[in-house]
């Protein structure tokens, strides 16, 4: 730490001149120190503990946690729920971003705000909404039950709750990108004789692909990790309606710590993988955004180049 404290201020001094905004090095070092302590204490150590506990009773116990039927069923259910929610929310997200950035219509600002609703509302409330609507005592629940379709305490309910919670991610990733890019290239494609479908696949999609991947990855991570909303609609029937997070809780409550952490480590690996892909996609999306921002004003800089018409 001593080394860090002495190098940081020097680096900062080189990067920017000391001015009104330059804090004394002691303050800066303290702030940076606090950030590091928090980071280690609240992010890095817990992650380490998960893996340490997962292997606490050795590799065989770790592997056994995944041999278990209940664990397999939970993994399958999680994959199924994410497999339903992610594609649907991808389609919805593209449609929403398209409508909100390309058309001007009454109620547009309200819709942009409402897209975020699942982020601000407690997931438990999200789950309860579906119980209220589709539960045995709910609005449509009795009708579905009469027709032999179970929604609450079954896969459809879990999928619905997951869709609700992961609803904003794709649209959120695309809206700023599509807003910055505007519609000029689409208009050009239109004037060249491309139909709507061709414009989407050949012009729009390639321009938004990294933003889209970013949204899908976040959507997937949240879909697989969701606990609150799913817990309400699933009923937590072991081996039947437990997803991975619910299965972890069941194991933990049964004092099977090593197994609980073993399964938890699976989610951690997923999170780390998401982080890597997300960082890459984010970086590429920012490049696309920067290109979009640069395009209209790039002319003045280009004009300073030597004239190239020969």
């Amino acid at each position, binding site marked *: 730490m001593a080394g860090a404290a002495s190098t940081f201020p020097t680096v900062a001094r080189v990067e920017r001149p000391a001015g009104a905004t330059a804090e004394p090095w002691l303050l800066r070092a303290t702030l940076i120190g606090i950030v590091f302590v928090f980071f280690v204490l609240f992010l890095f150590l817990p992650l380490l503990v998960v893996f340490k506990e997962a292997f606490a009773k050795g590799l065989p116990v770790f592997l056994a946690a995944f041999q278990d039927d209940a664990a397999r069923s939970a993994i399958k259910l999680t994959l199924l729920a994410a497999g339903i929610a992610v594609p649907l929310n991808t389609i919805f997200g593209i449609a929403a971003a398209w409508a909100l950035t390309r058309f001007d219509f009454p109620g547009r600002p309200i819709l942009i705000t409402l897209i975020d609703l699942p982020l601000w509302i407690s997931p438990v409330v999200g789950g309860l909404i579906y119980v209220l609507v589709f539960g045995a005592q709910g609005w449509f629940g009795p009708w579905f039950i009469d027709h032999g379709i179970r929604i609450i305490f079954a896969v459809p309910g879990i999928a619905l709750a997951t869709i609700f919670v992961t609803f904003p991610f794709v649209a959120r990733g695309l809206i700023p990108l599509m807003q910055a890019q505007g519609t*000029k*290239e689409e*208009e*050009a*494609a*239109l*004037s*060249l*004789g*491309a*139909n709507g479908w*061709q414009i989407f696949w*050949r*012009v729009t999609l*390639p*321009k938004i692909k990294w933003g889209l991947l970013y949204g899908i990855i976040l959507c997937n991570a949240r879909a697989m990790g969701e606990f609150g909303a799913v817990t309400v609609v699933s009923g937590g029937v072991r081996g039947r309606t437990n997803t991975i997070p619910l299965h972890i809780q069941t194991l933990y409550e049964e004092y099977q710590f090593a197994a609980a952490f073993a399964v938890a480590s699976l989610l951690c690996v997923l999170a780390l993988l998401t982080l890597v892909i997300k960082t890459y996609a984010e970086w590429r999306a920012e490049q696309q955004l920067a*290109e*979009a921002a*640069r*395009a*209209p004003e*790039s*002319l003045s800089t*280009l*004009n300073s*180049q030597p*004239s*190239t*018409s*020969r």
Partner: protein
Amino acid sequence: MSIEVREITKKFSRYPALDNVSLKIETGELIALLGPSGSGKTTLLRIIAGLEFPEDNKSRVLFEGTDVTQLTAYKRHAGFVFQHYALFSHMSVFENVAFGLRVQKRHLRPSKDAIRTRVLELLDAVQLSGFEKRLPSQLSGGQRQRVAFARALAIEPQVLLLDEPFGALDTKVRKELRRWLREFQDRIKLTTLFVTHDQDEAFEVSDRVVLIDKGKVQQIGTPDEVRKNPANRFVAEFLDLPWSDPAVPAIA
């Protein structure tokens, strides 16, 4: 191909962008739509291209006598060059120019080799041979503009529509491209409309000038006619010509 617009009216949230505009352009003419910014000249061009639509029932756009008012841009077959080029930023120069050929219906689409030949011909015509693998971001403003021209010409349009085609270029490149456009037009006699707010550009290049202000056509004529007989106060002031209102007798 001749273009005719009849009684075009277009409103943007109440204030009229175009107010009862009628205009006829003969086959092979090179016409400048000249006016200050906000005069409605770009809106008129976009309506002719099918990128925007007039909202009242009287407005008509006719290509060679055929009513195309209800057709969207992709069915009008008009070459459009955008002010900021609007090149496809993720495609190479070659792919940009080939785009209009590749999206044609299967039975009309040229073969791969035919597309290649045509694109290379066009790039040669706009003096960009050897640039086909570059991305638009690797080109200068003038080069991008010429790619935009080649792209619009690839679909063999019957009419060429240019929105401030040289507006974003520096003076030297601008003059070169102006001359190039005039020569090019003399050679292939393609009906061409271009929007500009620069009177020198309009007068130097075009066969006829259409002066537009406040959504209305103020005067149509050859550069000489307009300069000798400005029709009204706006035209005179816009062109820096002396103006005496014939309705008000000069005080001796």
